[in-house]
C-alpha cells in the first residue's frame, strides 16, 4: 500500500527540515561568533549529550513516568469532565466555570504548595502534569460532544437506545476528530508540565537537571536536556497522532479527494 511509502516520504521532508535548521544554527553560531553560554553549537550539544548519556537517561526515565501518567489521567478525567459538562446543564453551570478557573490559575505559581502538601514523590508531579494538560481536552471534547448534527442524533434516538449507547455509537465517533485536536494539544503540553513540575517540586528528572545546568551556566548541557525533553514530548505527540490515524480513517481531512482546493499546488 501507498500509505507506508507516503509516511516514509513525509518523514524524509521532516528530517530534511530539521537538518536544515540545525545546519543554519551551527553555521550562524560559527559565523557570528556567538558565545557557547548564550547559544551553543548543535554539534557541541550533541557531543555533550552523548558524553553524559547515563545521567540524561536517568533523568529522562524519572521524567517520563509523571509525564505519561499525568497525560493518561488528563485524557481520562478530561473526557469524563467534558461528558458531565456537555450533557448536564447543572454541571455546565456550576462545574465548568470551576474547571476554567482551575485551568487559568497559573499552576506554576501553586506548584510549590503541591510539594508541601504531597511531598517530593511522584504525586505532585503527576498532578501538575495533569493540571497543565487536561484543559484543552475538556474544551475540545465539550465542543465536540455538543455539535453532532441533529439529524444524526434523531436517527440514533429513534432506535430507542439510551443516552449511553448513543454516546458510544454516535457522539463519541463523531467527536473523535475534534477530540483528537485536544489530545494533541495536551500531549504537547505534558512535556512542559513534567518539566515545570520538576523545576519546582522534585529532586530528580530532566527539569531538575536543567536547573542545575543553567545555574552552572552549562548551556550545552542545558540545551541537551531541553532537546531530550522535547524529543520525549514529540514522541508522545507522534504516538497520539498515530492513534488518531488508526481511530479515524474516515475523517474528511483524511480523504484524499482528488483535486485539492483550486488554486493550491
Amino acid at each position, binding site marked *: 500500500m501507498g500509505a507506508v511509502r507516503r509516511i516514509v516520504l513525509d518523514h524524509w521532508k521532516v528530517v530534511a527540515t530539521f537538518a536544515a535548521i540545525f545546519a543554519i544554527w551551527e553555521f550562524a553560531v560559527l559565523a557570528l561568533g556567538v558565545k557557547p553560554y548564550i547559544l551553543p553549537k548543535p554539534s557541541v550539544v550533541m557531543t555533550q549529550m552523548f558524553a553524559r548519556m547515563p545521567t540524561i537517561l536517568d533523568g529522562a526515565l524519572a521524567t517520563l513516568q509523571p509525564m505519561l501518567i499525568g497525560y493518561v489521567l488528563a485524557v481520562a478525567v478530561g473526557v469524563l469532565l467534558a461528558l458531565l459538562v456537555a450533557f448536564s446543564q447543572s454541571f455546565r453551570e456550576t462545574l465548568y466555570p470551576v474547571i476554567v478557573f482551575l485551568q487559568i490559575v497559573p499552576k506554576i505559581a501553586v506548584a510549590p504548595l503541591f510539594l508541601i502538601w504531597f511531598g517530593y514523590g511522584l504525586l505532585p508531579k503527576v498532578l501538575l502534569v495533569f493540571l497543565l494538560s487536561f484543559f484543552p481536552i475538556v474544551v475540545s471534547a465539550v465542543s465536540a460532544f455538543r455539535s453532532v448534527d441533529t439529524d444524526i442524533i434523531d436517527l440514533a*434516538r429513534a432506535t430507542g437506545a439510551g443516552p449511553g449507547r448513543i454516546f458510544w455509537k454516535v457522539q463519541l465517533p463523531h467527536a473523535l476528530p475534534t477530540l483528537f485536536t485536544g489530545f494533541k494539544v495536551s500531549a504537547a503540553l505534558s512535556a512542559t508540565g513534567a518539566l515545570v513540575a520538576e523545576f519546582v517540586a522534585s529532586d530528580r528528572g530532566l527539569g531538575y537537571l536543567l536547573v542545575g545546568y543553567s545555574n552552572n551556566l552549562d548551556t550545552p548541557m542545558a540545551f541537551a536536556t531541553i532537546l531530550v525533553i522535547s524529543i520525549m514530548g514529540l514522541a508522545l505527540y507522534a504516538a497520539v497522532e498515530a492513534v488518531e490515524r488508526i481511530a479515524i480513517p474516515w475523517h474528511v481531512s483524511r480523504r484524499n479527494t482528488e483535486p485539492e482546493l483550486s488554486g493550491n499546488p
Partner: protein
Amino acid sequence: MSISLRNVGKTYRRGGMATHALDRVDLDIAEGEFVAIVGPSGCGKSTLLRLLSGLLPASTGEILVNGAPVTKPSGEMGIVFQAPVLLDWRSVRDNLLFQVEMRGLKKADYTARADDLLRRVGLAEFADRYPYELSGGMRQRCAIARSLIHDPVMLIMDEPFGALDALTREQMRLDLEALWMATRKTVLFITHSIDEAVLLSDRVVVMSPRPGRIERIIPVAMPRPRGLEGRKSPEFMRISDEITDIFLSRGVLTAGVGAGP
C-alpha cells in the same frame, strides 16, 4: 401496532418567531394498515413523522401508540428519514448494522441479513464503501435497507423513493408491497407521488398547506397485489384524479414566468 392522533398540533419557536406547522390533526391507524400521506411541501409531513416516532413533543393534543401516550422513541419502528442521514464513519454495511448495535442485538446474527438487504436494494458491491462514495440514489437505498434490518413491527417512511429513478422506484414499490403483504406491518408512507400513494396504501391522507391539516382521507379499495397493472384500474384513476383535484383547488397552476431579468 396501532396509532391514534388526537387533536395534535405543533408550533416551532425560535426567539420571537413561530412556525405553525401542524394544526388539529386527528388520525387513527389500525394495526397492519398501510397509510399514505400526501401534501404540499412544507405542510408538516416530516413534522408528523417526528411527532409519531417520539422524537419531538407535540405542542397540543395527544399521540397514542397501542393506546399508550408516546413520550420517547421506542425503537420498535423502522424509520426512513427524508434525508438519508448515513454515518460518515461507517461503511455501508455497518450503517445497516448500526440499527442492530443500537438495539443491543448481536451484530453477527444480522450480517447475513444486512448483505441480503443490500443485494435487494442493489448495493451488494458497495457494502464496504463509505457513504461519500455513493450516489444520491444509492444513499437513499442504503437508508431504506437500514430501516428494515431489525424487522420492525411498524415502518414510517418519509419520501423513501424520492431520489430514485423511475425504474428503480417502481421496483422498490413492488418490493415494498410484497413485503407488506407477507408481513402486514403497520406502514405510514409519506410521498410526493400521488401514484405511489394510491398504489400502495389502504388509505391516502391528503394534507392541506401550512399549517398542515388533514384535508381528506381517501380509502383505496383496490385488490392486491396491485403490481404494475394497478395504474390501469379505474379505481386508481378515480382516486388519483380526486387527489389532484384537491391540490388544484388550492392553487391554480400558472403557465408561469421565469425569474426576471
